């Protein structure tokens, strides 16, 4: 089965930034994503316990390489200063490129 190379962008952030991220994705015509709540530890200390607003979420987006750089730049510029965010990119292979 032939696999096509695309990029997987993973963003771990405070849950209240999720909306902002999805808005940025939309601006780049990306609507597909998968998300789930996670706990975590980092500079801001232990997160994921207590009130809903203080939780972390992971957002994963499979996308073509072309859009990657712009999306990351947008997120870095607008969200890094004010929100708890970590992101990383990995290479993945998919069967149907037309989905992304």
């Amino acid at each position, binding site marked *: 089965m032939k696999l096509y190379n695309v990029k997987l962008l993973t963003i771990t952030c405070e849950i*209240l*930034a999720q*909306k902002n991220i999805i808005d940025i994705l939309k601006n780049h015509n990306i609507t597909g994503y998968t998300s789930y709540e996670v706990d975590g530890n980092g500079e801001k200390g232990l997160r994921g*316990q*207590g*009130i*809903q*607003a*203080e939780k972390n979420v992971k957002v994963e987006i499979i996308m073509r390489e072309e859009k990657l750089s712009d999306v990351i730049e947008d997120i870095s510029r607008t969200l890094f200063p004010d*929100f708890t965010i970590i992101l990383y990119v990995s290479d993945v292979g998919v069967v149907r490129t037309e989905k992304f």
Partner: protein
Amino acid sequence: MDIFNLIQSNLLTPIILFFLFGIIAARIKSDLKIPEAISEFLPIYLLAAIGLHGGIEMRKTGFEEMLIPMLVAIGLSLLFTLNHYQILKRLGKFNIFDSYALASTYGAVGAVTFSVGLSFLKNQGVTSEGYLAAILAVLEPVAFIMAIFLTNMAVSKQIRSKKQSFSKDDASDIDIGMKETKTKLSQVLQESITGKAIVILLGSIVIGYIIGEEGFEPISIVFDELFTGAIVIFMIEMGIIAGQRLEDIKKVGMFLTAFAIIMPTFNGIIGVLVSTALGLSLGGAVMFGLLLASASFIAAPAVLRHAIPQANPSLYITSALGITFPYNIIVLLPIMFTVSTLVHGEEAIDLFNYVTKVFI
């Protein structure tokens, strides 16, 4: 003295004791916690119960008499928010973002505090006006909206003055700034109004109003009799979260700690006096005072994180939940009750003189 007796007897109710217990559990690093689904559900349940109760009461009394107290509450809330801002910015030297965020956190209201207040009154055998639930609902977004509006104004102004020092002819940028502000404001307004707390509260008030005492009967065991027990369970979780934040209080600083105690006291007592002057009952005046005294710690982060992302959430959550909330339910509630008892002992007309004498 009467106040200390009241504080002490309040301290020894299950609600307060389980809250303190939660704090201790967090401090000794116990793994005790109320599962998230339960602690997310409980505020919804509490607000539904408050709303139903309020709606049923309003059906009995009509809602014309609600208008003045509500407008006064809105006015006071806005006034207090501005006042908070000045104090925080000028005396506290907080930056503009933190100042507005904190100002509105303390201008807004706390639904959990309100629940505890209702239980406190029940314990004292005192009732309160049903329409206070409606004021609770309306007051929720008011302080936020003003703070956000002012923050955006201030930011636009900054941008404008910066621009003007560079060139004189790009008014369009300022227009864009203004437009963005409007978009943001309408977004926040919508988010606030469709926020779960307000929606369930208003919905339940309306439903309570429609069904009345009789329609409520088959569900009264769930929405009335279980109420205090449900608060107790929620207070364990509130205590745990407050306890986990105790360390952060150091970071909050002396100034904000003092603010988090003095401001609610001031706001609350003003609230009791004004509402008494407006003719509210002993219990109603306490609840009115509590509305103004309380700070928002569930709705606040959800709204402010989007509206004023530059503000440090740790500041407003920690001070509201870690300092003001315990202070309000343990100390200020009995104080306001005593004040309300005092002023309700006199004639309404005398009271007004009394108020003016004491505060002006």
